[in-house]
């Protein structure tokens, strides 16, 4: 830098803070000695910096209670890495299952785990007549009938219950999944009494891809008018 060029404010500030690299400091100091304007600017920046620090000093800063021993104790404590533990467990189970898959006791064990862990999601079930299907619907539940039927009806009613119940007049296989139920009704002539919890936020009933009944909040749309208050009879043909 030529000593005749005015140094930028950043350099002057760095000079005041003792942070200007030595090779630049000599130039800036030499210039300031000969330049009244830069000396004024230095004084002005110094005053501004002091005011800033004085204002920031107003912020309360209680004496901290910082001790190193508790920090070191915490630092030495082994962290529990739950993610790693879960991964290791999964690996052990997968390895064991892979090594022994096909053995009857492993199959029985896995079936038992499935029945315990996912009681509401059996692979495919055949309800006993009169028992029906019942589950607690999530934020959005869908009851899907695979196929149209030549006979039979849906009798849908609202009730102050927590479970959504589907009660067929004849045994029909079904599959429960996280979003609702799929009823495999191809070739069936059953009718279904369906009880929808009044508090369920969203329930949809579809037959062969067509929406026959939908409840969103307290609003209901159905392909048939209500027979009585809160009860709809919809033919499946």
């Amino acid at each position: 830098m030529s000593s005749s060029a005015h140094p930028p404010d950043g350099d002057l500030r760095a000079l005041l803070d003792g942070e200007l690299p030595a090779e630049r400091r000599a130039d800036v100091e030499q210039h300031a000695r000969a330049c009244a304007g830069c000396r004024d600017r230095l004084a002005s920046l110094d005053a501004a910096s002091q005011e800033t620090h004085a204002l920031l000093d107003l912020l309360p800063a209680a004496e901290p209670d910082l001790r190193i021993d508790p920090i070191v104790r915490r630092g030495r404590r082994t962290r529990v890495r739950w993610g790693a533990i879960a991964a290791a467990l999964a690996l052990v189970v997968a390895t064991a299952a892979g090594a022994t898959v096909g053995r009857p006791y492993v199959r029985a064990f896995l079936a038992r785990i499935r029945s315990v862990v996912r009681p509401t999601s059996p692979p495919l079930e055949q309800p006993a007549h009169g028992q029906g299907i019942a589950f607690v619907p999530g934020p959005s539940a869908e009851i899907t009938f695979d196929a149209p039927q030549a006979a039979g009806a849906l009798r849908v009613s609202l009730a102050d219950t927590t479970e959504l119940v589907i009660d067929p007049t004849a045994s029909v296989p079904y599959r429960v999944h996280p979003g609702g139920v799929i009823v495999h009704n191809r070739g069936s002539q059953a009718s279904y009494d369906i009880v929808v919890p009044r508090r369920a936020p969203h329930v949809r009933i579809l037959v062969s891809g067509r929406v026959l009944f939908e409840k969103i909040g307290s609003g209901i749309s159905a392909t048939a008018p209500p027979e009585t208050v809160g009860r709809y009879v919809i033919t499946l043909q």
Partner: protein
Amino acid sequence: MSREGFDRAFHALFADRSARLYRYVSGVSGDTAMAEDIVQECFVKLYRRGAMPDDPPAWLVTVANNLLRDDQRRVSRRRRLTLTRSADLPLGGAAPPADAGALAAERIESVRQALARLPLRDRQLLLMRHAGYRYREIANALELTPSSVGTMLVRAGEAFRKAYHELFGAST
């Protein structure tokens, strides 16, 4: 560096830098209790790291900034809830007395609000420098070039003082 060497360096760093880090964190957060927790957490993380980073003071500030940011998200949510709740409350109440204590409190509040008006980078810059960090450490922690720190400090300082005088001038 051996474990013994690291432990010695760790203790020296704690003795030399914990109070400075605390000063910076309490300035940014405005919460002295939280600042203590964050400073401790920074040193715990460094201890667990088991090796000194290239620029330990800057590394500690970077970790502190990350912890502050995480905490700020939680605080923001709490503040929104508080504001919603407060909106239900009746307005009014006596104005605080205009004595010396109230005036000092007003000044402190104006400083806080003036800082809050600044972009985060400017706030961090001013408070790091105020806590005594060197330009090189500021540059490393905030990912700046060391030669730009002086210029940025001048600008951030001007913005801060202008905001303060607007706030304090308006309130007195």
